[in-house]
């Protein structure tokens, strides 16, 4: 892609999210979301094959629908209450509509069906931007909504964790697995949104770190299916030995970092007298854990039957910078002892 155009698009991606972060007016927040959607469209379509174009079209249609719903919710709020402030949205109807619009934007169940297909049509770096950067602005708006009927968010959260777990079980394509894992993690984030927004923020940051390292690991190994993961031990042995731990961190096992948000969220739910919801969420994490375990198994815990000469792929000089991967992998494996510090740092 033309470097000037690429620079403009990446700048607009940053501008859109910053605009949504910095705004207290619904119209400006909506504008930031639209700028984000528009700026990522050419990035998604840059590899010209029909699958990428299909993914771009689906992404554009769903995001435009969600933005229209959000605009409608803010207009309804302006009509009912006479003001446009994000944090003063007090009427339940626009608040519910805005929550559903933002849920469609980020891919919460039952509004998640676009996410696996869109992510499948993209290459891994663009999918990384989609899964991490594009989630920041809508979650900022969700964090700023006034407390409302908590049943909606609890139902969205539990459905997302369950569907994220069950949906990912039957997949062999890594990008679809990551899409369902994104839905499940967003479900955990939204589950605790009404009760402790700081935990949502903490979960978001930790999820971003873990997903970042996962996408970069798959990109380094140039693998998009479980089968191609199986030869990654010969390409980059160190990464293949750390990647199972990173995947188990995504699954939320102690003593890895991914356990921290789940632990704190379960504690908060129990304090809020929602023990059945907490139990259901914890059990749904087992479903996700199973397919992360399957990926770890394929990657590092087994060798597929083959003759000797077939086990070694070409070992070329690595062309990627691995410093971001190194930083995020370290963060996603070893930050659990810093739980008190992180809880104090990521407070709203």
């Amino acid at each position, binding site marked *: 892609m033309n470097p000037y155009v690429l620079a*403009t698009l990446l700048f607009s991606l940053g501008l859109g999210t910053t605009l949504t972060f910095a705004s207290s007016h619904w119209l*400006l927040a909506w*504008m930031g979301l639209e700028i984000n959607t*528009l700026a990522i469209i*050419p990035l998604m379509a840059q590899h010209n094959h029909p699958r990428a174009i299909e993914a771009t079209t689906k992404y554009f249609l769903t995001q435009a629908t969600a933005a229209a719903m959000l605009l409608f919710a803010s207009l309804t709020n302006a009509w009912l209450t006479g003001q446009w402030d994000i944090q003063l949205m007090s009427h339940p109807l626009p608040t519910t509509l805005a929550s559903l619009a933002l849920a469609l934007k980020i891919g919460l169940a039952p509004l998640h069906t676009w996410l696996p297909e869109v992510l499948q049509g993209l290459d891994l770096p663009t999918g990384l931007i989609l899964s991490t950067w594009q989630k920041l602005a809508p979650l900022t708006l969700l964090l700023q909504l006034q407390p409302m009927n908590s049943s909606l968010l609890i139902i969205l959260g539990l459905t997302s964790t369950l569907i994220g777990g069950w949906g990912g079980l039957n997949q062999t394509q890594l990008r679809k697995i990551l899409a369902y894992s994104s839905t499940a993690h967003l479900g955990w984030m939204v589950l605790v949104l009404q009760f402790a927004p700081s935990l949502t923020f903490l979960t978001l940051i930790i999820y971003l770190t873990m997903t970042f390292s996962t996408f970069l690991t798959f990109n380094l190994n140039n693998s998009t299916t479980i089968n191609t993961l199986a030869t990654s031990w010969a390409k980059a042995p160190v990464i293949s030995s750390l990647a199972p731990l990173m995947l188990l961190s995504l699954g939320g096992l102690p003593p890895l970092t991914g356990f921290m948000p789940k632990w704190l969220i379960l504690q908060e739910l129990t304090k809020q007298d929602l023990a059945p919801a907490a139990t259901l969420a914890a059990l749904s994490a087992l479903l996700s854990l199973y397919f992360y375990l399957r990926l770890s198994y394929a990657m590092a815990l087994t060798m597929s039957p083959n003759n000797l000469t077939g086990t070694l792929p070409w070992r070329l000089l690595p062309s990627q910078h691995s410093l971001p991967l190194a930083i995020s992998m370290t963060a996603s494996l070893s930050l659990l002892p810093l739980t008190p510090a992180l809880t104090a740092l990521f407070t709203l």
Partner: protein
Amino acid sequence: MMTYISCFFLGGFILSMVAVACNPSPFYGSFGLVAVAGFGCAVVVGSGGTFLALILVMIYVGAMLVVFVYSAALAADRYPESWGSGGVAGQAMGYLLGVMVASGFFWKEEYGVLWGFGGSVEELAPQRGDIGGVSWMYSLGGPLLVISAGALLLTLFVVFEVTRLLHRGAFR
């Protein structure tokens, strides 16, 4: 009298939307869009938003839709399907039935004719409708205008980039 005219425009709005929904080809669907925009602007004028309706008609219908219609006409069939073809009448009947069912669902006895707001807010009562908002938009809302213009410029670049990419033919 004004109520009757506004009702006529509202009815025309709904019928044009039905026409857009059951268009047999984009060429005629965009004509339905012109009608929708025209009737919608007439409704907005009747509610006091004269500036908004004028800008919408001039820029949306007058420029963008004309450009779209000409490019669709150039790219589309030589003999496009028109309203009289195939199952279009059946589809239109179906949509009209849906509209009547939906409005009947929300109908109450005291609804003679529905009318909404008059369009002016109390503290701006001397002006008609949206003139106060226009002056705010150009003075205190200057940064908003700049950001909106920036977003539209970005849309232009995005469309250029997408059509340049698709020129290599994945999207036929």
